[in-house]
C-alpha cells in the first residue's frame, strides 16, 4: 500500500472543500472496497478523508411517504429496518444477498453505490485495463468473460457494476442527494452510473469531490409485491452472475405498474425500460413476461464466454415476474 495521510473533516462542507483542494484525495466510508483497492494499489490516494461520522446514519420518513437514508447507514441496518422490510422488500433482500454479515455491518449506503467493478483485470495492476489505466486496452476481450457485461458495453470496457443494492434502488426510482462545492443536487440512481463508452475510467456522473449525503426512496405505492433474485456461482457470499429486482402491480389480470432492473449484466444497474413498456397495460401472463424479457435482451451483445447470461437473464426475469403474479393474487 502507498503511504497516505488520514484526515477527519469537521463537517460535510469542509470535507467537500478538503477533497476539492487535494488532487489525490479520496473519501473513506466503511473502507471495505477502498482499503482492498489500496492494498492492490489499484487506488493510490495520498490523503483519505474519513466521512463516516460526518454524514447521516439515520433512516427518516419523508413527508410524501417515502424514506430518506443517510449515506452512512450500514447495509445491515438498512436491510433490517422494519419500514424497509415492509415497504421495499426487494431492497432488504438485495442488501442481504450481498457480501457477508461482517461486511454488511461496515459497508455504507454511499460506499455501496460507489464500489468499483470486481473485474479481475481492473483489480490486477499487471494487466491492461482501460478503466484503471485509460488507453491500455481491455484484457477481458480475450480473457475471462463469465462476469462481464452483456448490455451497454463498449469495445473499451465490458466490466459490470457489482452492487446488489443499487439494482433495487434503480428499480425503485430512488435518487441520491449529493453535496459538492457548488451546493447540493439530486440525481436519480438510474442516472448516477454511466455506460463505459470510450471513457470507462468514469463510473458515475459525479464530479470529483462530490459527496453522496443520502438516498431518497419514493412512496411505496404500486411497488408491492416486490422481490430481488440473485443467481450466482455459489449459494451465498458471491457476486451476481445475473440478478433481477422487480415489482409488479396487477389489476383485473392486467399489468398496472411494473418495475424491473437487472444486475450483473452491465456497467450500471440496468433498468429494463423496454420490458417495462412492453408490459404496461398488457395481460399479466407468462407469455407477456417472456415476450417482454426477450424484447429487453434483443440488444444484448454477449461475448463468447458469457453468452449463457442472455437466457439466464431472460429466464430469471420471467420466473421472478411469475412469482410476483402469484404473490399478488
Amino acid at each position: 500500500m502507498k503511504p497516505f495521510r488520514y484526515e477527519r473533516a469537521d463537517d460535510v462542507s469542509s470535507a467537500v472543500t478538503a477533497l476539492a483542494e487535494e488532487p489525490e484525495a479520496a473519501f473513506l466510508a466503511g473502507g471495505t472496497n477502498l482499503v482492498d483497492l489500496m492494498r492492490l494499489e489499484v487506488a493510490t490516494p495520498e490523503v483519505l478523508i474519513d466521512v463516516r461520522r460526518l454524514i447521516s446514519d439515520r433512516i427518516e420518513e419523508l413527508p410524501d411517504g417515502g424514506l430518506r437514508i443517510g449515506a452512512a447507514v450500514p447495509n445491515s441496518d438498512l436491510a433490517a429496518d422494519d419500514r424497509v422490510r415492509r415497504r421495499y422488500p426487494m431492497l432488504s433482500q438485495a442488501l442481504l444477498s450481498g457480501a457477508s454479515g461482517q461486511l454488511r455491518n461496515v459497508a455504507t449506503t454511499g460506499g455501496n453505490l460507489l464500489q468499483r467493478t470486481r473485474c479481475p483485470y481492473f483489480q490486477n495492476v499487471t494487466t491492461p485495463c482501460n478503466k484503471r489505466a485509460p488507453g491500455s486496452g481491455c484484457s477481458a476481450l480475450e480473457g475471462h468473460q463469465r462476469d462481464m457485461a452483456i448490455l451497454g458495453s463498449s469495445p473499451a470496457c465490458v466490466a459490470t457494476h457489482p452492487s446488489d443494492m443499487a439494482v433495487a434502488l434503480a428499480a425503485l426510482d430512488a435518487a441520491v442527494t449529493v453535496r459538492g462545492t457548488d451546493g447540493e443536487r439530486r440525481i436519480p440512481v438510474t442516472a448516477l452510473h454511466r455506460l463505459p463508452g470510450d471513457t470507462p475510467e468514469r463510473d458515475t456522473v459525479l464530479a470529483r469531490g462530490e459527496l453522496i449525503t443520502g438516498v431518497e426512496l419514493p412512496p411505496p405505492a404500486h411497488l408491492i409485491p416486490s422481490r430481488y433474485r440473485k443467481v450466482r456461482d455459489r449459494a451465498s457470499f458471491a457476486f451476481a452472475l445475473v440478478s433481477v429486482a422487480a415489482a409488479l402491480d396487477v389489476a383485473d389480470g392486467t399489468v398496472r405498474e411494473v418495475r424491473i432492473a437487472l444486475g450483473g449484466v452491465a456497467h450500471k444497474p440496468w433498468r429494463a425500460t423496454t420490458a417495462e413498456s412492453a408490459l404496461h397495460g398488457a395481460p399479466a401472463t407468462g407469455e407477456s413476461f417472456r415476450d417482454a424479457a426477450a424484447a429487453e435482451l434483443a440488444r444484448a451483445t454477449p461475448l463468447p464466454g458469457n453468452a449463457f447470461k442472455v437466457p439466464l437473464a431472460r429466464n430469471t426475469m420471467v420466473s421472478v415476474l411469475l412469482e410476483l403474479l402469484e404473490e399478488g393474487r
Partner: protein
Amino acid sequence: MDVEITLRVDGTEHRLTVDTRTTLLDALRDRLGNTSPKKGCDHGQCGACTLLIDGRRALGCLALAVAHQGADIVTAAGLADGDGGGLHPLQRSFIAHDAFQCGYCTPGQIVSACGMLAEAEAGWPSAVSKDPGATDVVLDDEEIAERMSGNLCRCAAYANIVPAIAEVAHR
C-alpha cells in the same frame, strides 16, 4: 505516516503509534501480540480475521486502525475471559462437536457466530428468511449456514460447525 491511537482490546486499553496503512488485524497481531484473529486472505473474502468492533462483527483486514480511534474490540481470546473465566459457550460447543480440523478459521468462526447470534436475537432477517417481515428468527441449519457464509473453512468442517452453533442458538 504515524498516528497515535488508543484501542480497547479484550477489555484492556492500549495506546500505540501506527502507520496510517496498518489494519486492525495487523495492529492486533504484530503490535499487540494478539494472534487470535487470523490472516487468511487479507481481502475480506474468508472471515478468519473476524472481530467484534463496538459489539458488531467486522473484518480486521479491511479496517484501518487510524479510522478506529477509541474502538472497543473483542477477539476470540477475549471471549474466553468472560465472567467465569472459562470458555465461552460457543468455544465449548466447537470442542464438543469437533467443529474444526486445522483450526485456522476457528477464532473467526467463533467471533462471527457470537455476532451473528446477537443479530438474530435483534430480529435481523437473512437472505434465506422465508418471511422478510418476521422479527422472530428461527435459526435452522439453512439460516445458520447463510448467516455464517462470510466464514470459509478450508478443511470444510461445516458439517460440524453448523451443529456447534445450533446447539448454542437453541439453548
